[in-house]
């Protein structure tokens, strides 16, 4: 497999930053960055990462099931993550999550038919003092209300 020049450069660097013979350390970072480009962790990607890090594909498979951010199926173009953990719960995170389900017409970890959105109820993401919080892909949104979320979804729809 080949990747964009930026990703290839990142991979090349990743293989140098861990001690000699410890390139297995690069497995998770490679998967994290590659899945953004490939869409998800595919079979082909598993084998490619295994080859580059000098480990067995099974050792790559092993970590995929463990880390919640590694996905073997494509997410929506905009992955909407709503936190319902304690600080968000106390400030409306649950209502927000229910509202997101209704607005998008999908449930937890589902993708809209057009592939534009996916939804996930997530655990605390480190925005507790500015709760309730939502992360869209890697962008944080603080003090989110149902109206703000609707506007955000509308804006993303227009962007496509």
């Amino acid at each position: 497999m080949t990747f964009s020049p930026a990703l290839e450069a990142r991979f090349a660097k990743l293989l140098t930053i861990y001690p000699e013979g410890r390139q297995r350390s690069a497995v998770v970072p490679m998967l994290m960055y590659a899945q953004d480009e490939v869409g998800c962790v595919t079979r082909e990607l598993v084998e490619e990462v295994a080859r580059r890090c000098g480990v067995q594909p099974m050792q790559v498979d092993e970590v995929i099931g463990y880390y919640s951010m590694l996905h073997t199926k494509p997410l929506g173009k905009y992955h909407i993550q709503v936190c319902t953990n304690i600080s968000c719960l106390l400030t409306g995170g649950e209502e927000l999550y229910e509202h997101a389900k209704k607005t998008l017409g999908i449930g937890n970890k589902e993708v809209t038919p057009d592939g534009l959105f996916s939804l996930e109820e997530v655990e605390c993401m480190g925005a507790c003092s500015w709760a309730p919080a939502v992360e869209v892909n890697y962008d944080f949104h603080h003090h989110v209300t149902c109206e703000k979320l609707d506007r955000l979804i509308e804006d993303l729809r227009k962007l496509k």
Partner: protein
Amino acid sequence: MLYNEPNPLETRVLTKRFGIPNSEKAEVYVANGGYQAFLKATGMPPEKIIEEVKVSNLRGRGGAGFPTGLKWSFVPRTSPKPKYLICNADESEPGTCKDRLLMEYDPHQLIEGMLIGGLAVDSHKGYIYIRGEYRYLITMMEHAIDDAYAHGWLGKNIQGTGFDFDLYVHTGAGAYECGEETALLDSIEGKRGVPRMKPPFPAVAGAWGCPTLLNNVETYSAVPNIIRDGGAAFAALGTPKNGGTRLVCLSGHVNKPGVYEIPLGYPMLEFIEKFGGGVRGGKKLKAVIPGGSSCPVLTASECDIIMDYDTLAKAGSMLGSGGMVVIDEDTCMVKAALRIMRFYAHESCGWCVPCREGTTWLRKMLQRFHDGMGQASDIPIIGQVSKNMLGRTFCALGDAAAMPTISIVEKFREEFEAHLDGRPCPYEHKPAMALA
């Protein structure tokens, strides 16, 4: 732009540079007094650096509150093996959102703290393990590191001092358990993040089997201040054995939630009033989670205390990670207990049985209770199952799940009873959003 208004009553030591534009630039940091502590430390024998940290009474800000200087002294600095420095930036304890700010607004302070740590334990390579959700911070931290290299603050022969240090960022991928130090080590080695048997402690056998100094972002970020102004000055800010300031993440039912830097020993109720602007909507305070969701809950009447590690321990709770959650009178504590347990059940790595099974059963029991199908006999069982996890797991995740649950069952038993006999949750008609 800062995420919340700073409060004039703050004691800004670690956060004093917050808000200065272009914080990722080494030059900006230097222009604001940065990297002077590192230069000072290069002229100090390592024992003296560690001594200053000991004198400062700095205690780990990741949750356990272990004395930092003592931890540094455990690393065998003369070991022929390479020694590694790791910064724990996994920040996943519910209620905690401060490491994020320290990396975003003053990344070089963290780099400098790690450099000083490197001098102290004779390490030349460090890694910052940042949770995967913080991708934007990973990028920012990478920029700051690149700029530090470009200006000779990282790499070979730093500023002509003869000291070499390389620093890298490692991304997590979504797992609370990887914040536990030994699980983090397995994770950085490219494995599933499951905890290791201790001892040996990471200081002796850590990353790739080598001596490793592992601290939280805030802990390292405090170090330049300690070396620059002296350990005694830092210690004097706090209370005996509880040195310095810390970033408290105030969340929940307050008028002005936010992250505020205050000295250790600040009175809790005064903090909620003067910083948080009091409980939202003029409601009454019901409970406080003082330092992240793994801490035993305090009832309103138990909150008339000062906030330092020892006082919180005496009150039967913990200062933890600084995530302080304020809960008002309209909150269902059964629901709070359930949500907290759902988290720990989800995050249990499954490595040891008491934690994996205990959290799962507790989640199911609490759910049933909240749904109105609980039985009176379930109440003591919830307490018992929790107590059976305490101290019986590889890492403290089992304790983290048990402690808040035990405290809620003991202190809010009447709320459990109010859910009995198919009665609907008495708080259900009070949606949180209505208060917003």
